[in-house]
């Protein structure tokens, strides 16, 4: 069975795009092969900075023949129908068609079209150019003479040559002949840019890989990673040091070299005064080098690991020296940032107003930075105001949340006011990934309370499902305030996540809130969050006549636009959703007219109005909506933890909006899960399902609610079976117990109460015929079952439990 070898040789492909490009190449080519019926045994893609390679093993020499029958008109059909058939089937005359007989329908024509299978070589020659022309690079470019024309080939960087061979293992391979924008396919590639740049003629994968290896190219990215990691660890070990592993960096540097050569450099010990995270960030981001630690102390060592692409003639002395020089220059910058950030800002007097507003102490460096952030008016989001305004909101909310989470309100407010203060520092400006961490260090240095300093860093946490959740109450208060402000704010302006798009990481924020609440045992009713106010610069005068003046009938006659323009945002918060929707509709129509008449300014104004109306509409919808978003996130979280997400639905029941206490929901779900894992739980669920099914069937006959109300106990006492009596008694005892337990938030107790029902339910179904011929008996027994359904609902909606 022949193999395909394809190599696309180009100028340097960005490291971050390489792996996906290899996956895409494999998928696109193999999908196209399969689509033509060309099945293969295996495929593997490889990538280096200069080449994308695909090997497809075990292809057929040619595709299978295809035989197709096309039904035509019956014999003797009108000429138009016959001509249409001949044309569609590609026949010259009816002589070429076959006649088939059908006892019911009579004789009709059938065309039998036989297509011989396509040569695989020819198929590849069609597939590969098409894949190249439509390749999904995240960014692509044009180049050279060909780019003078409109539709020239696009590639990630100039594409230089294409190697494409096809053939069986034992034979010589053939070049698959095609051409893409002047590049003719061949069987030649090149080795390492500096170490072995000469041409290499290739037959198939095995000689390709070994020739490249001789020409100083390691084709497989994973092998390059292994080499780098092993050599780096060995170099570190030889110096008594430990490599700080960094998978992201490793992946990147493996994409920057074809022939990895690992070297170790050093820098002056005095630079170790800079926080280790900052050293690591600068060496990583700017130099793409690894850092090392001293295993004895756990502190950074004054060494670094670099990965070069060259086996240099001097063994790497010059390369190491050059890299060391750049690392020192970068660390000098970092040292400068570290020093500057701890000193006073030059233009302090201009920040007085901001300091006053935020209650900051301009004698302290970090307070100065916060004042600067406010003074600069840096916008957080166009519709959500500036960073300064945001910090004020978070500080107020953190203070409010403090008693709920057991934090000192003063500390929570102080921490919130310093939480974003490191954003304008030099260090965070250069290395945004150090936000929070630098804030904490600067806070500690200016003598802030330990909890306050910790909260400055920890308020960003948790950053994902596996990140640690802070437990210091001050951190919890600020972390909750930060995330809730973000969520409520973006909800209010209707910037919610959709599908895969979540640019403001709102899902992560909601999950963060849930984990903060659940893991710290915080009772935080989402529906009682403080009202959120949108901060926009120009709130016009309030027009109180808005509602009165508008009716559906005269909507087209009123100067709606000017009215809306004069309405302040405050006002929008007090009017009905329906009116806002009418207004929205009106302005949207107005825009169409304006656009048509090219009234550009007017159209722009209208769009602004729409933004404001939508923001108000968002406010109205936001709280309810946000709660169901939390519920969804909770389900995802519990599912990821292995819990059954149907139990969340069951616990939320129908009145989901009332369930705004995330901690209680979680506890209930856990208790319900444990209960259902017991024998009692399983049986009670089975009994419940049976009861519910019978009720549903009978309610169809007698009508919804036909069996509501309490069963007639007298009738049961007089004529009921012993099992019936037992169930009535059990229900009378267990129902109030379960309800009381739920009210007391004792979910284990509620489950225990339900468990008491189980023997009675089992016995009831064992012995009692519900649909008794006597209508009174039947109705009474159904009422009993309805009582059972009600009793379980106090705990959860068992209908929503699967199984």
């Amino acid at each position, binding site marked *: 069975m022949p193999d395909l070898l394809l190599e696309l040789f180009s*100028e*340097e492909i*960005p*490291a*971050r795009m390489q792996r996906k490009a290899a996956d895409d190449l494999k998928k696109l080519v193999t999908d196209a092969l399969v689509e033509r019926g060309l099945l293969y045994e295996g495929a593997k893609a490889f990538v280096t*900075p200069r080449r994308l390679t695909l090997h497809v093993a075990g292809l057929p020499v040619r595709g299978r023949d295809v035989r197709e029958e096309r039904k035509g008109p019956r014999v003797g059909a009108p000429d138009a129908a016959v001509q249409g058939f001949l044309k569609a089937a590609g026949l010259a005359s009816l002589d070429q068609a076959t006649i088939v007989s059908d006892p019911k329908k009579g004789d009709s024509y059938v065309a039998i079209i036989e297509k011989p299978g396509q040569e695989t070589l020819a198929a590849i020659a069609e597939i590969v150019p098409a894949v190249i022309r439509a390749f999904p690079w995240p*960014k*692509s*470019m*044009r*180049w*050279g*003479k*060909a*780019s*003078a*024309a*409109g539709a020239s080939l696009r590639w*990630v*960087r*100039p594409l*230089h040559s294409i190697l494409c061979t096809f053939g069986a293992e034992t034979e010589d391979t053939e070049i698959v002949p095609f051409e893409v924008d002047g590049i003719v396919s061949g069987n030649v590639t090149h080795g390492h840019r*500096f170490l072995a740049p000469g041409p290499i003629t290739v037959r198939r994968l095995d000689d390709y890989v070994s020739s490249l290896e001789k020409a100083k190219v390691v084709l497989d990215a994973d092998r390059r990673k292994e080499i780098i990691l092993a050599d780096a660890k060995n170099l570190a070990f030889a110096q008594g040091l430990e490599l700080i592993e960094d998978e992201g960096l490793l992946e990147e540097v493996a994409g*920057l*070299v074809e022939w990895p050569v690992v070297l170790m450099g050093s820098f002056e010990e005095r630079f170790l005064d800079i926080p280790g995270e900052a050293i690591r960030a600068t060496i990583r981001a700017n*130099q*793409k*080098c690894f850092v090392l630690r001293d295993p004895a102390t756990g502190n950074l060592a004054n060494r670094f690991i*670099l990965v*070069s*692409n*060259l086996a*240099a*003639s*001097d063994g790497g002395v*010059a*390369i190491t*020296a*050059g*890299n060391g*020089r*750049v*690392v*020192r*220059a970068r660390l*000098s910058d970092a040292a400068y940032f570290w020093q500057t950030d701890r000193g006073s800002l030059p233009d302090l007097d201009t920040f007085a107003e901001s300091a006053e507003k935020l209650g900051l102490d301009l004698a302290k460096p970090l307070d100065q930075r916060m004042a600067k952030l406010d003074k*600069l*008016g*840096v*916008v957080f989001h166009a519709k959500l105001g500036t960073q300064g305004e945001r910090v004020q909101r978070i500080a107020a909310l953190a203070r409010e949340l403090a008693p709920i989470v057991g934090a000192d309100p003063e500390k929570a407010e102080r921490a919130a006011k310093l939480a974003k203060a490191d954003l304008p520092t030099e260090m965070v400006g250069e290395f945004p990934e150090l936000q929070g961490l630098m804030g904490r260090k600067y806070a500690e240095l200016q003598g802030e309370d330990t909890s306050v300093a910790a909260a400055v860093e920890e308020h960003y946490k948790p950053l994902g499902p596996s990140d640690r959740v802070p437990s210091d109450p001050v951190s919890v208060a600020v972390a909750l305030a930060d995330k809730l402000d973000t969520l409520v704010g973006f909800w209010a302006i209707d910037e919610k996540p959709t599908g895969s798009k979540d640019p403001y990481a709102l899902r992560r924020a909601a999950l963060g809130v849930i984990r903060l609440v659940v893991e710290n045992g915080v009772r935080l009713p989402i529906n009682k969050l403080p009202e959120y106010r949108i901060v926009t610069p120009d709130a016009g005068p309030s027009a109180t006549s808005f509602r009165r003046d508008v009716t559906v009938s005269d909507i087209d006659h009123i100067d709606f636009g000017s009215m809306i323009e004069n309405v302040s945002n405050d006002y929008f918060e007090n009017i009905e959703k329906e009116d806002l929707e009418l207004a929205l509709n009106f302005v949207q129509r107005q825009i169409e007219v304006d656009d048509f008449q090219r009234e550009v300014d007017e159209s722009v104004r209208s769009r602004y109005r729409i933004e404001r109306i939508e923001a108000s509409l968002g406010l109205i919808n936001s709280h309810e909506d946000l709660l169901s978003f939390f519920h969804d996130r909770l389900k995802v979280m519990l599912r990821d933890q292995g819990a059954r997400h149907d139990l969340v639905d069951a616990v939320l029941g129908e009145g989901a909006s009332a369930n705004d206490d995330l901690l209680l929901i979680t506890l209930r779900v856990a208790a319900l899960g444990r209960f259902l894992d017991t024998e009692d739980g399983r049986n009670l669920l089975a009994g419940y399902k049976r009861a519910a099914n019978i009720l549903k069937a009978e309610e169809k006959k007698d009508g919804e609610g036909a069996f509501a109300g309490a069963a007639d106990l007298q009738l049961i006492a007089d004529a009921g079976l012993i099992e019936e009596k037992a169930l009535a008694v059990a229900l009378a005892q267990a129902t109030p117990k379960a309800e009381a337990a739920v009210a007391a938030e004792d979910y284990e107790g509620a489950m225990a109460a339900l468990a008491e029902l189980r023997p009675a339910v089992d016995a009831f179904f064992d012995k009692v015929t519900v649909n008794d011929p006597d209508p009174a008996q039947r109705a009474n027994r159904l009422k009993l079952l309805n009582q059972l359904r009600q009793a379980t609902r106090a705990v959860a909606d068992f209908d929503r439990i699967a199984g």
Partner: protein
Amino acid sequence: MSALAQHSPAAPSPALDPTRSFQGLLLTLQRFWAERGCVVLQPYDMEVGAGTFHPATTLRALGPKPWKAAYVQPSRRPKDGRYGENPNRLQHYYQFQVILKPSPPDLQQLYLDSLRAIGVDLGLHDVRFVEDDWESPTLGAWGLGWECWCDGMEVSQFTYFQQVAGVECAPVAGELTYGLERLAMYVQGVENVYDLNFNGLDGEDRISYGDVFLQAEQEYSRHNFEHANTEMLFRHFSDAEAECKALLAAGEPAAGANLPRHELALPAYDQCIKASHIFNLLDARGVISVTERQSYILRVRELAKACGAAWLKTAGGGAN
């Protein structure tokens, strides 16, 4: 004995040796690219933030006509002034700029050959092409390419222009920008830019980069951060913007003209350059707020786009 007298006849004079003198580096690059068909131009006589602003790049990158040029361009970045105290940062420095339109297929190789010419041994040093896409919001321009690393130091910028002044490049030009001071520091093995040997001589004949530029860095830093008259600069910005627009309007071909050519594209573009530099000065003085900043950039971009459109209506822009 003077340094000049010491050199052997076979080696280049130290005054011209790219590894010994700053000027030698510059002259070597000029000679290298001249031999490869470039017109070697002199710096544009206006203050610009980067070599790309030179009309030989910005405008010549537009339109169908082939073009090869190389030149040194002093680049002014008022905000990067450090009063002469930072060993790596300058508010005035030199870029060596090469533009080749259309981009030749061996552009990477040509670049590597130029490094060899200035004394970088490619068997000894690790040269890499690391993704770095270039974008100039003020020029409405972008391209894909790399920063070129030599032993971990960025020494050049390598870009395939895709769009300039808001216009798609057809054909695409390749642009190389060498940071001359950095390269010189590298080949001379110097840690501080002011210690660079400028003329390649020793002893009392030696002239350092600091001898030439330290005082200028100190004075211009004072000017850029403390003394530039912002009221006047705001006025000059508006003047340059208005003049650019006026020239663009005046140069438009008359309706029904036989040869619909724009007649003032180059003078109009000068005013765009001027506005851009004034904006940079105002930015350095810290008198432009974050929100205003965006609007100033947009205003310069509008000028650049209009100038590009005008250029395409000239002979140089390939108008018929």
